[in-house]
């Protein structure tokens, strides 16, 4: 390599390091410190704030258990559904002539702000069947209208027959309704990225597999999926981080009411509404801890790239 001055890399890095330090690193350290202090950050309270999260003494106004469980549901269901749908749409769309139109239609929701999305979906989920699209469609098929965002029970099992009125947290109807909006917004991202990966697979390879008598499913499972897996990891990582930090969507749709709080909305309430910085900070730290496994995956991918180039 060329002889650089020892400070050259630091010169290139300095704008980033300064901004990250001021806006992200310092606040993170400060939050960690405050998670061990009382609500006004004056007195040391040890692990009391973390015990508050575990013991959940104020389940009625700030249900920490429900928030953690809801986040877990978001993390698994949102990520899994979006990746699977994205993969399915990318593969299916590649086999029709109007591929570009189909992909654009799925991508449009990605460009919509949460404020606009909340307007759209309040319309879609409206209880009044004269206005609410989902309930209008449901009743025209012979079903009953449902309060999608308020209902903490089970979905209707099939049109007219209703499920139980309450479901064990977090498997309640309104969580699924919210997660669907998230899926609606992010599927376009998965489709566009995955279909770009799909385009990189040589058609000779697919033709060879088919010539050898592989069915379409076998071709997908044994040829396409293995080649596409690094791209799937990129998409899944981005989605997991999105799910973890999920705030805007829940905040504009329900503000965490009807047991739909996630960790980020509960943190916002504790810190800015109830003015308990201690518990708020502890919740934020919990969120950061969930990220450790994702970081480990990133480290491995990074080192892998370093080795092969």
């Amino acid at each position, binding site marked *: 390599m060329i002889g650089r001055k020892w400070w050259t890399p630091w010169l290139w890095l300095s704008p980033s*390091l300064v901004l990250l330090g001021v806006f992200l690193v310092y*606040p993170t350290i400060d939050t960690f410190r405050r998670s061990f202090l009382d609500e006004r950050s004056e007195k040391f309270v040890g692990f009391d704030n973390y015990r508050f999260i575990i013991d959940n003494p104020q389940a009625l106004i700030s249900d920490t258990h429900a928030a953690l469980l809801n986040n877990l549901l978001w993390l698994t269901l949102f990520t899994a559904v979006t990746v699977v749908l994205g993969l399915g749409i990318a593969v299916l769309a590649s086999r029709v002539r109007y591929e570009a139109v189909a992909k654009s*239609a799925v991508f449009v929701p990605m*460009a919509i702000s949460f*404020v606009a999305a909340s307007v759209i979906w309040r319309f*879609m989920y409206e209880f009044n069947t004269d206005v609410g699209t989902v309930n*209008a469609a449901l009743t025209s098929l012979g079903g009953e209208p449902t309060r999608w965002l308020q209902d903490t029970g089970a979905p209707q099992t099939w049109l007219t027959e209703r499920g139980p009125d309450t479901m064990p947290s977090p498997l309640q109807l309104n969580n699924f309704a919210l997660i669907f909006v998230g899926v609606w917004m992010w599927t376009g991202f998965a489709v566009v990225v995955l279909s770009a990966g799909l385009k990189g697979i040589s058609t000779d390879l697919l033709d060879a597999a088919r010539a050898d008598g592989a069915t379409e499913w076998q071709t997908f499972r044994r040829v396409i999926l293995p080649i596409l897996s690094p791209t799937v990891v990129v998409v899944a990582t981005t989605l997991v981080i999105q799910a973890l930090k999920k705030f805007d969507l829940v905040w504009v749709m329900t503000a965490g009411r009807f047991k739909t709080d996630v960790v980020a909305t509960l943190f916002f309430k504790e810190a800015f509404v109830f003015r308990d910085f201690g518990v708020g900070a502890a919740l934020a730290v919990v969120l950061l801890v969930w990220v450790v496994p994702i970081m480990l995956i990133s480290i491995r991918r*990074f080192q892998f790239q370093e080795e*092969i180039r």
Partner: protein
Amino acid sequence: MAQEDISVQGPHLGGVEAVRQLFSRLPVHVAVIGIVIVWSIPTIALLVSSFRDPGAVITSGWWNALRDPLDLTLENYNTVLSQRGMARSFANSLIISIPATLLVILIAAFAAYAFAWMEFPARNALFLITVALLVVPLQMTLIPVLRLYTNLTVETELPVLGGRMFGTSSYPGIWLAHAAYGLPFAVYLLRNFFGSLPRDLFESAYLDGASDRLVFFRIVLPLSMPAIAALTIFQFLWVWNDLLIALILLGDPDLAPMTLTITNLVSSFGTAYQLLTAAAFISMALPLVVFFALQRYFVQGILAGAVKG
């Protein structure tokens, strides 16, 4: 890079064979078209509602408007656009989004170049910390940043900067905040892309005596246009659609972006749905234009080394 249907065997299909193929591929068409319809309904509902009469929107569903299209009106757009401060807030959104987007790309590219092609102590550790910061919830950082800004607010006479040079309610203040929050993703994406460029390219350039500055501006940036275009779309979408940072850091209503003005419209008009729909559509129009303009780069860019490993 076959754009056409990969399952078409050859040009000389018999009539019977063609019909058989159409039927065997019918499920694919049904699935793709079905998904496109489901994904588009919410946006179409929003679009149609935005052209309807104020009275009609609350009493009947948007699909009724399709029966007599002559009833549609531009009244809602008129009302929203003539709303005090709406033009100003559109300009504000641009003034905030464009510099914030350019800033993050330039600063992140400097850092990504250093991370990818320079040797220095703690390189891997620093990069990992940067990636880990991706998951820091924004809400967590806002209190310390707001406290810092309040102490560092600098007044200025320059009218372009909105009366303030730095701190709360100043354009530079919010540019820097957006740049910092966008940095982890930008550095991650660009470092992956820069790292996947061939090593020979750099070694021969260095051997010829090229400086880092020359290599960066003449080789790295031009070769990375796809990744940079992808990043431009993402960063622009995020800054344009941001509500939270503007809400906390911009106290002055004269500097408020579209998202903030629309949210205020929501609260002051209550359930004036017809205005909300028009406002929501105005706010998403520009991001959609940016997306369609940069779409082709975006498809290649986001992969950023994922395909190569």
